C-alpha cells in the first residue's frame, strides 16, 4: 500500500467534468494530497475536501458555481469511486487513500 506518508497525508485523485473543469484551470484530473485528519483531529471527509478545493485548487473567482450556501451546488453530481455519493454518506464520507472523486456538472448545455 504505502500511499500514506507517515500516516499523515492521504493521496487521492479529483476529476472535474461537465464544464466544471473550466473553474479549475481547464484541467480535468488533479492529484491531491490531504492531511489524514483535520484541525480538530477527525478523519478528513468530503466537507474538508470541498473546502480545500475552493481555497487551493479553484482558479476562478466564481466560487458559487461550485459551492452554494456551503454545500455543493444543486445540479452537480458527486461520484466517489464511481458511486453516487448519496450512497456513501455525502459530506460525511471519510476519504481513503487512492480514492477517486468525480464532480460532474449537469448544468451546462451542449
Amino acid at each position, binding site marked *: 500500500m504505502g500511499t500514506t506518508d507517515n500516516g499523515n497525508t492521504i493521496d487521492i485523485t479529483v476529476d472535474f467534468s461537465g464544464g466544471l473543469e473550466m473553474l479549475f484551470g481547464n484541467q480535468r484530473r488533479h492529484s491531491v494530497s490531504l492531511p489524514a485528519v483535520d484541525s480538530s483531529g477527525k478523519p478528513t471527509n468530503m466537507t474538508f475536501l470541498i473546502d480545500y478545493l475552493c481555497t487551493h485548487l479553484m482558479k476562478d473567482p466564481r466560487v458559487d458555481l461550485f459551492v452554494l450556501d456551503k454545500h455543493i451546488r444543486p445540479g452537480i453530481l458527486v461520484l466517489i469511486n464511481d458511486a453516487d455519493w448519496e450512497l456513501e454518506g455525502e459530506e460525511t464520507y471519510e476519504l481513503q487513500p487512492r480514492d477517486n472523486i468525480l464532480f460532474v456538472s449537469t448544468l451546462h448545455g*451542449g
Partner: protein
Amino acid sequence: MARALCANCKAERAVIKRPKNHAKLCKVCFIQVFEDEVHHTITSSKLFYPGEKVAIGASGGKDSTVLASVLKTLNERHGYGLDLVLLSIDEGIKGYRDDSLDTVKRNAVQYNMPLKIVGYDELYGWTMDQVVETIGKKGNCTYCGVFRRQALDRGAKMLGIKHVVTGHNADDVAETVLMNLLRGDLARLSRSTSIVTGDSRSEVKRSKPLKYSYEKEIVLYAHHKKLDYFSTECIYSPEAFRGSARALVKQLERVRPTAILDIVRSGEDVARLVPGEEPSSCACSGQKGAAGLVDDDVGGCGSQNGRTPGGEMAAMDKQLRDNEASEGLEIDVVKTMVEGNAARGEKRDLPIRAGNTSKGAPRQVLGNCKRCGYMSSQEICQACMLLEGLNKNRAKIQI
C-alpha cells in the same frame, strides 16, 4: 463501510440512487433500466413507425449524445427499423460551436450515422456573430431561439426527413412548465409538455423521447457508458429567466427528487384543461380514463402508423372547431370529463381570472408564412419578422 447491493440483481455493488424512486442499482442494471424506460416511452407514445427516417437534433452535448446512443441501441435491440441521421445546427458563433461540432463529427463515426450540419448563414444570411454585432448582446437569444427552431425543421426537409427528435429531458420540461406558469402562459405551458409537437399541418414532426428521463440519470448514463460529449455555455448572454427556473428545479430536486417528474405530470394535467390542446402524457401513466381519451384524441402525432392523411385533416378540423367553440367562453377553461364514455362531452366550466386567459390562450390558426412558406400562425413568420429588422439595420450600417 458496508456497500449497498443492487436492488435488481442483488449481486453487484450499487452505484446509483435513482431520483424517481430512490432505487439503488449497479451500473449494468441501471443502464438496462434506463434504456428500457426510454423504450417504454417510445412504444407507449407510438413515436415511430417501421422504416421511418428520423433526424436526431445533435449538439454534441450530453442530452443529444445520450439520445443518439440510446436510439441506436434500442433500434438494434428491438428492431424499430429506423433510419437514423444526426442533424446539427451551426449558429455561427466563433469559439462556441467549433468544439461541439467536432464532438458531433466523432459521434457520427462512433454511431455509424450520417451527419448533416446546417448553418444560420446559409439559411438566413446571418451568423449569430453578425446578429450580435448588429443588435448587441441583449435580446440575441430570441433571434437564436427562433432561428434554431426553424433550422432543425429546414435541415430535416433538406434531407427529406419528416421527424426530428431532440434531447429535451424531464428537467428541461419541468423548467419550461415553471417558466410558463410564472409568465401566466397556459397555452404554451400545455404545448411544452407534449411529447410530440407539430401537428398534421406541419411538415416536420418533433418529439422528445427523453421527456421522462432525469438529467441526473442522463449524465450518469453518459458517464458509465463512457460516451463522448462536450459541455459548453453560450458565450453570449445566458437566458436569465430560464437560469432561475433551472436553479429552482435543481433545488427542489435536492429536497424532493420526485418533484421533477411531478412538475412534468402537473404540466400534462394542466394541458388537459386548456382548450384545443391535446393531452400528451405517456399513454400508460395511469391517468383515470386515459383510454377513453385516446379515441377522440385530436392527434398531433403526424406519423402514427396507419393513420390516414384524411383522418389527420379531420382531426385538425375538429381541433379548429373546438378552438372556435371555446373562443366564446373567453374567460373559462373547459375541461372535458373523461371519467367514462357516458360522461364524455360533459363540460365543466372552471372560472379563472380574465386577465390570465386573454394573454394565456390566444387562438391560433395555422397557415403559412407569406414570405418563406414556413408554417406560421401569423402572416409573416417570426424568423422573417426578425430578419426584416436585421436587414434594415444592415442597410443602415452599410450607408
